[in-house]
């Protein structure tokens, strides 16, 4: 793939001696919606944190817009992050600020825009996610889907080049899920941004993503367009896509033999 805004090269990362990723290579082309899929605990969110510079790789590198992330000092990382917007799993809205103030937060922190412009911009962003009418509600007054949409409005507040989504569909009802799917695609295309989604929801992701990476056992187990992956004969991909109970990912967690445990 060419014209990538993010390149991950031979990336290894672990906590202590335990390596979570070993030699991962990924490319995220500009203007596309890419997804990282895999089972729970496979280190999908960790990849987002490595892209955002919240974690440092054990070896290898993450390059964002030509800059190697882990070689940057704090100011350099903060400069890179201004090009990014991130939607956290449960929204991570600031609970002491209203919806309006949550979306205005990045603008107030990083720009010197006058108050009337900030007001217009915030209402425009909220309108884009269908929540202009909820501007003066507080986060506890929102449903899960609404909170996710407000967080999305906050993530795009400064029109970022890269938008990262951490489990955007987790715990949502089907209507909210469809709304979020539609927003991810339409906002990506409208802003000309690059989107990366970390998820394990197959149906939704396959319906709108341009390219998908499957992560398992610390490596990229498969990659391709949704169509290519649907036709894949790889046992892991088949098990994951068709939600099969047993396969390369076993039903049983590692345990002593039945004979040993039940004294047979």
């Amino acid at each position: 793939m060419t014209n990538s805004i993010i390149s991950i090269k031979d990336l290894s990362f672990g906590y202590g001696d335990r390596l979570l990723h070993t030699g991962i290579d990924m490319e995220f082309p500009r203007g596309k919606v890419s997804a990282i899929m895999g089972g729970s605990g496979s280190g999908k969110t960790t990849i987002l944190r490595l892209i955002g510079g919240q974690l440092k790789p054990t070896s290898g590198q993450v390059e964002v817009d030509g800059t190697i992330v882990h070689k940057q000092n704090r100011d350099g990382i903060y400069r890179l992050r201004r090009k990014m917007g991130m939607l956290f799993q449960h929204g991570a809205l600031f609970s002491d600020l209203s919806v309006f103030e949550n979306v205005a937060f990045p603008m107030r922190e990083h720009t010197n825009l006058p108050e009337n412009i900030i007001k217009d911009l915030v209402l425009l962003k909220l309108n884009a996610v269908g929540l202009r009418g909820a501007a003066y509600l507080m986060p506890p007054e929102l449903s899960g889907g609404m909170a996710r949409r407000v967080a999305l409005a906050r993530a795009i507040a400064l029109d970022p080049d890269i938008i990262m989504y951490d489990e955007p569909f987790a715990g949502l009802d089907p209507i909210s899920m469809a709304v979020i799917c539609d927003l991810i695609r339409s906002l990506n295309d409208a802003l000309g941004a690059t989107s990366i989604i970390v998820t394990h929801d197959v149906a939704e992701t396959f319906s709108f993503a341009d390219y998908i990476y499957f992560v398992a056992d610390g490596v990229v187990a498969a990659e391709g367009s949704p169509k290519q992956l649907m036709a894949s004969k790889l046992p892991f991909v088949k098990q994951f896509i068709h939600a099969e109970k047993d396969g390369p990912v076993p039903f049983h967690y590692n345990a002593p033999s039945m004979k040993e445990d039940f004294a047979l």
Partner: protein
Amino acid sequence: MNINTKTLLKFFEKIGRSFSSRALRLGSATRLFFLILIYSADSFKRIHLTIREIYFTGVMSLVIIIVSAFFVGMVLGLQGYYTLQKYGSSEAIGVLVALSLVRELGPVVTALLFAGRAGTAITAEIGLMKATEQLSAMEMMAVSPIARIIAPRFWAGVITMPILASIFSMVGVLGGYVVAVPIIGVDEGAFWSQMQANVDFRFDVINGLIKSVVFGIACTIIALFEGFDAPPTAEGVSRATTRTVVTSSLAILALDFVLTSFMISG
């Protein structure tokens, strides 16, 4: 290696691990303290945040401080009168109440109440912000949580503590007065004049204020660190909140002894 040597090794390993983990936490807390100082300039640019925290930690603690101070003052008045009258010096009750409050009880009890009321609130709030990824979200927006969240709370605590301790001492003296003068019948003139003559501004009042500033720094940094360091789970936040009260209380009492020793010898 025989069994006894193994047990002994395990014992020392356990002590070593416990010691190193405490040393590590102390180091992390010290690092946080210096980071707060470094980010304070950024934080002062958003002075409204510090003012807001002064309201939450200071103004919202006023009820508990005033009520406690009044009762402490009244108890001091009663106990003091009971003891002093045996020696025929019940007129010195004003001095006893004022010195007890200004030198010791004002700063110490205020700090203990502050740790219980404001300290736990700070720890729980920051712990929950961490658990709900609000701090990570801020980091990802290229905004330092130390400058935006931690430093304003630190300075609010440092500013608030001496003010609360002064209010505690004033209300406590009033409580002592209510018991000693209108109820017991000690001469009002003797109560105030002895107090005025024997309470030294520099040695008593200023030293009390110094204590309350030091306690304010200790309580706030402990509360902030415990919240910032809390594991992002319900149990983690609850344990951190408990640790805030226990560690702050012990730190206040230990620091009180150290400061009093220096003040008396100096």
